[in-house]
């Protein structure tokens, strides 16, 4: 990969980031040398006639309502965007795709940019809740530098509705200080939950991954809506329920406190936990499980569309995006961003699992999201 990048080399970027984090350089210096200043310039070009700050603020408005997942952005990036454009970002954080969809369906959200996962986008489109994206307004987004495995769900019938933010997997995190023996599969996950790890295991509080990973125990598809297969999964879930510590998608506090020893877990949470507590190991079940892409999209009802485009364009600028990845710990889909990341990140097996593990993973399916039987199964599981 090229070291004579016109803006800044990977090593230099990391060095500057670390210096900034340590506090030995000011943010202004950091923004200057790392190309965040450049990002401003690029954006100013991208939005014609908006170079003077005042005019920019006037045209973009003063607010952007950004809806995303917890711990899923670098606050410094958002601040920098506000500094450059005068647009204050109002962040809302959600717990599941279903919740996001429910709120957009009900209406009145006022969201400008949100972060749907691959399997929801066709539903948003069908319900006419999202806008097609005008790529001309996203000059920093380069389709050709995207890893093609992850882009597709954002494009429906040739029209782009969403651009990729990052990708990841859903495996489980294990506190190896407490859990002995090598963990490699969903079979082990569910068996040991009902055995020596009783009372110490968490699963997500939404149907897709909880039911999906119970299905994997039997080797069924993660996305199955077959009644017989779902019945098997239900039996397993009901059997395991008394042994669970909690049903909650917010598993970091309990894992950190040592109350829970094992939990269904997304890439970035695994990375964040591992970063602070090296005994936390991230496992992708041998049988498979979920691989996913999160996207940026603009709701049809967005009140600040110009600011929404400016923000997506800004955040997808490789230098900005690289800082996002370092903050949230999810791998980028953009080769230009990866070029700026340190080898340590690119070699991290949590972010980039071995190919043989990836091949068994499945993308969530739209039918899984809207299937009423899976929803009812989840309710029975929770109320049992």
């Amino acid at each position, binding site marked *: 990969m090229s070291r004579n990048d016109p803006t800044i080399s990977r090593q230099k970027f990391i060095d500057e980031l670390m210096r900034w984090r340590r506090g030995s350089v000011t943010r202004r210096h950091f923004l200057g040398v790392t190309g965040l200043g450049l990002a401003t310039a690029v954006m100013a070009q991208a939005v014609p006639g908006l170079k003077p700050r005042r005019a920019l603020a006037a045209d973009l408005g003063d607010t952007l*309502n950004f809806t995303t997942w917890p711990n899923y952005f670098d606050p410094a990036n958002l601040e920098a965007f506000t500094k450059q454009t005068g647009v*204050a970002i*109002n962040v*809302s954080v959600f*717990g599941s795709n279903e919740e996001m969809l429910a709120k957009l369906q*009900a*209406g*009145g959200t*006022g969201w400008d940019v949100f972060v749907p996962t691959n399997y929801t986008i066709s539903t948003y489109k069908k319900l006419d809740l999202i806008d097609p994206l005008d790529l001309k307004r996203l000059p920093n987004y380069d389709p050709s530098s995207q890893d093609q495995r992850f882009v597709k769900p954002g494009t429906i019938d040739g029209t782009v509705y969403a651009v990729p933010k990052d990708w990841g997997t859903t495996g489980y995190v294990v506190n190896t200080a407490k859990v002995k023996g090598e963990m490699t599969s969903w079979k082990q996950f569910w068996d040991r939950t009902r055995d020596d790890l009783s009372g110490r295991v968490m699963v997500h509080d939404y149907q897709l991954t909880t039911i999906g990973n119970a299905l994997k125990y039997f080797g069924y598809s993660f996305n199955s809506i077959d009644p017989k297969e779902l019945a098997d999964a239900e039996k397993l879930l009901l059997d395991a329920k008394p042994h669970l510590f909690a049903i909650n*998608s917010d598993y970091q506090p309990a894992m950190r406190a040592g109350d829970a020893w094992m939990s269904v877990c997304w890439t970035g949470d695994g990375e964040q936990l591992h970063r602070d507590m090296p005994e936390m190991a991230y496992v992708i079940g041998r049988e498979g499980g979920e691989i996913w892409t999160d996207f940026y999209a603009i709701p049809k009802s967005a009140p600040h569309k110009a600011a929404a485009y400016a923000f997506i364009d800004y955040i997808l600028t490789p230098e900005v995006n690289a800082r996002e990845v370092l903050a949230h710990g999810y791998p980028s889909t953009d080769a230009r961003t990866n070029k700026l990341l340190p080898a340590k990140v690119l070699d991290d097996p949590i972010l980039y699992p071995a190919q043989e593990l990836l091949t068994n993973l499945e993308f969530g399916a739209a039918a899984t999201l809207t299937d009423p039987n899976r929803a009812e199964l989840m309710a029975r599981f929770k109320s049992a």
Partner: protein
Amino acid sequence: MRWYALAIYVFLYLPIVLIVFFSFNSGRYAMDWQGFSFQWYGRAFANRFAMQALATSLEVGLWTAALSTVIGTLTAIGLERTRGWPRRLFDGLIYVAIMVPGVVIGIATLIAFVTLFGALNPLLAHLFGPDGPQLAMGRATVVGAHVLFNLAVVTLIVRARLAGLDRSLIEASEDLYATPLGTFRQVVLPLLTPAILAGFLLSFTFSFEDFIIAFFVAGPNNTLPIYIFSSIRRGITPEINAIGTVVLIVSLTLLITAQFLLRSRDRAVAGKG
């Protein structure tokens, strides 16, 4: 007896002590003690999102308290003058307003208003052009949904107080040829003050603490409980505890002031009729 009381106070204050204690933690996660530091207070005040949420909650809380108190008081007085089915109807509505769970009122209000706004907005656009005013979910809708519950509560409190009023005072005032409005201003209102103050405080608290109604009807606005809820999804930081501590100190001040005001009048705030 004394020991039992002490035990209850320990029970009530144990979590509060923990919240305040861990707000001085220098570490990144609240419950993982690293050392003493004031830094999170500085960070909390510098955190634009948190301060914005706090400001929204204060604004919504004050509007809710003001509207609930005024409307609730008027309703209580009006109901004292009402007999028969209108009174029974209002009684029923008041109890239903208190009874409907927040989850239900939140979702139902959201759907009702989105539908209503959807019908009205084209009309507004027609009248004032595309850049004219449009109705949207926001602080006003939160205030509306909060007032519903609290106005019912205030009505009950004020009515209890009204029922306990000494009627001879009013008759005396009327015998002295005071106008009805004069009697109200100079006799009834001062006697109602403790109940009105109690209603104001209670409404403010309910509004300030509410998560679920605001979650549905706040549109893109975050209130403080919504902000706190989304911030603690990945672990509580001392910063959140610092915000909680500041809120506690402010409300404590409010409460002591109110208690002082109430005590100077009558201790039984909402005595039985």
